[in-house]
């Protein structure tokens, strides 16, 4: 039975079992491999996508259950915050192997969309579900802080 799912603004129709996790629809059916497989049970965050702006683990999200709009790493740059995070990631040179970074970016952008100015404790708590095995945590934190600070100063300038 065909299932329709909207991803990055495009409606895709896939003929897969309803309980197939979104991750494997993305990777093996639609050829969108930016979203990564890490653990398969929602423990590492490598597969993080957003559904209606909320970070979700695509490895544990049955495709048949999705009602909202999916955003993946391939579509992240379309949002202002997403683009700013991608740029900050490069400027800070966050990554080592880079495998977990799509999930880190998707989670970080969901955080900044709901809380544009998180403090250190909030960043650490929000990002604690995303494992970076290379442990680039200091730089992930730095890049998020940088984007938040830039947005804040832009907003203050606009308010003057």
């Amino acid at each position, binding site marked *: 039975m065909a299932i329709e799912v909207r991803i990055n603004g495009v409606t895709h129709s896939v003929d*897969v*079992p309803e309980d*197939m*996790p979104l*991750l*494997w629809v993305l*990777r*093996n*059916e639609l*050829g*969108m*491999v*930016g*979203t*990564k*497989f*890490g*653990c*398969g*049970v929602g*423990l*590492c965050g*490598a597969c993080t996508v957003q559904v209606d702006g909320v970070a979700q683990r695509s490895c544990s999200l049955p495709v048949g259950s999705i009602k909202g709009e999916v955003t993946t*790493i*391939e579509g*992240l*740059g379309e949002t202002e915050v997403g683009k700013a995070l*991608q740029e900050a*990631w*490069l*400027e800070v*040179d*966050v*990554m*080592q*192997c*880079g*495998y*977990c*970074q*799509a999930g880190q*970016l998707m989670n970080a952008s969901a955080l900044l969309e709901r809380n544009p100015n998180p403090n250190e404790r909030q*960043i*650490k*708590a929000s*990002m*604690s*579900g*995303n*494992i*970076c*095995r*290379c*442990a*680039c*945590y*200091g*730089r*992930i*934190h730095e890049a998020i802080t940088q984007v938040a600070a830039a947005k804040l100063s832009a907003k203050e300038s606009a308010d003057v």
Partner: protein
Amino acid sequence: MSDVLTQDRMALSRRTLLKAGALAGGGLMLSATIPMVARAAVGGAAAEASLNAFVSIAPDNTITIVGKNPEIGQGIKTMLPMLIAEELGADWSQIKIVQGDFDPAKYGTQVAGGSFATPLNWIPMRQVGAATRAMLLEAAAKRWGVSASGLKTDKGKIVDPKSGRTLTFGEVASDAAKLKAPDPATVPLKDDKDFTIIGKAIGGIDSPRIVHGEPIFGVDTKLPGMKYAAYERAPTFGSKLVSADLDAVKKLPGIVDAFVIKGDGDPQSLVDGVAIIADNWWVANKAREQLKIEWDKGQWGDHSSAGYAAQARAFYDKGQGTPFREDGDVDAAFGSAARILEAEYQYPFLAHASMEPQNCTSLMREDGVLEMWAPTQNPAAGHATVCKLLGLAPEKVELHITRMGGGFGRRLTNDFMSQSAAIAAKVPGTPVQLIWSREDDLRSDFYRPGGWHKFRAALDNDGKLVGFTDHFVTFANPGAGPFNPANMTPDEFPASYVSNLRYSKDEMDTRIPMGALRAPRSNGLSYAFQGFLDEVAEAQGTDLPSLLIEMYSGKEKAPDSEGAFGSTAQGFNPERAIAVIRKAMEISNWGTPSASGRGKGFGFYYSHQGYFAEVVEASAERGQVAVHDVWVAGDVGSQIINPFGALNQVHGSVIDGLGQALSQAVEFEGGAAKQSNFHDYQLARMPMTPQIHVEFVKSNNPPTGLGEPALPPVIPALANALYKATGKRVRTLPVGDSLKA
């Protein structure tokens, strides 16, 4: 010149030499020689001119450099081309980098392991750049009718200072490609003070693709008509497949095929299993639940962590083990000692848990060539293993090296390549991507071996350390002895620094696969030795860094043990050790007491030719450990080639070491690993991240690698800090609950 060395280059005994030479499994083939394969210019004026195996230049002055080594996140795909670009006289903005396929005749050694890339390539890669530059200068000189010796390069251009004329590299590249390459050894290299690229913080070359989610990792490989495979092996190591009922699986929707694969009995090559092929990996993996397989566990089915611990205890009850180093008169030293200290340290088996699960894509082509896309740290070994397994001539296996989502030593062993090759051989013409689940990955690893150390130290009336013994209990592969990561050399510190010293050993056979985990051997030994030496220092009324400085002071440089590091060996220099120890004391305000409830601990370790001294400040309130700050002083020679990558390696090593020490262990029961995913094998997460302060102590020595040496000292530094904070010695890892009341 070629050095055949074992996995982490130590313990070059005759036996390991022979084993590594065969390149089956984990051996590394290391050579410091780079072939300069001259290649003719291709195509006409619009095409790229290939000056040698590493450098091609397009008419628009874009320079394409081949990154020859596998990229696991250590930054080598950016760093090695930096060395070429520096001597070439290029501007970094001109540079494009492509990953080289496995082709040792073209590229020389291609391996990610042992922190070896920097010492092995520091000169040869620069020579490639310098030789290429010489060809460009000669081509320009010919065109202008002047002598090449008067010409200079400036950011991708050739300049004639006399006339002010310039030519871009791209304008002369096709002429240069027709010239004979000079002998790289005869081409002069730049003075360090003239570097414009080396020493600059340069971002990872693949990072822009990664932040946009473009395909780049092994598991992202996609070929027309590709299918996906899952591989069911026995949870118990050493099992043989007796029979398998595949009927139910074959009837499931989406399943393309399922078949038994008989292995060759070598876990580094191929173990028995069942392959399930489907259009979607999730479907293939889920179908494993329907498999009915009968396994013969053989003699290994009752092996367990508890059993190993009992065996270790029995060894200690029995005696002192087999000595492998004996200096002075140990019994006399202990007989006349004023004080004797004794303590047992132990550490567990560990998994690698790279974020990208093991995978490999293979296609048996119609021309009889097996084409592979493999995330392997050790392509030479993987290639050899696959050729042997399938009986294929070397030229019948083409191997593309993909970027890897972490390695940490796991992908030095290429069992996933063998599985993928064996599957592809059964379905010629169909590309198949084998993917392991996380459970497969944690339960089919080549684990960091656990170990036990029973130490004794003898102090004389003045508190001087006059006797030292270690009875080491470790593991051996049946019939093969301890693999390097489970071994200890007779030169382990404090050997040579204590007059009366005995190292002895007992080994137990296991079929649990063992391998190299980041800073193999050092990651366990550093903890045990530096932990016990901290106890010695306390008994002397001093502290560990002061004790080490005293022991190292006035001592001669010593060769690296048993020929380690091959042609790049510099030997152990006690002065470099003292310098980093002093620097770590200085930046951590070592003498200043910590706030209440906190403690500072120290660790020093020399591994992979790097000298690292580290201080950890930690606390443990109600058993809850918090690591607040880590200070790192390291000496890896005269240059930090790419500060971006270098700092990332140090930070990563520190957190990796802390994560291991705090919570990681793989336990065995019924001959199988108990841990299966990140709920029971816990990796470090952002909230535990301490502040990390790094200072490199530059010394006048050739640069060496940074993937590993910053890890070992942080573990004893943590253990020693927790002792200061709580008054309890941490003699067993992981720390876990051991500090709770």
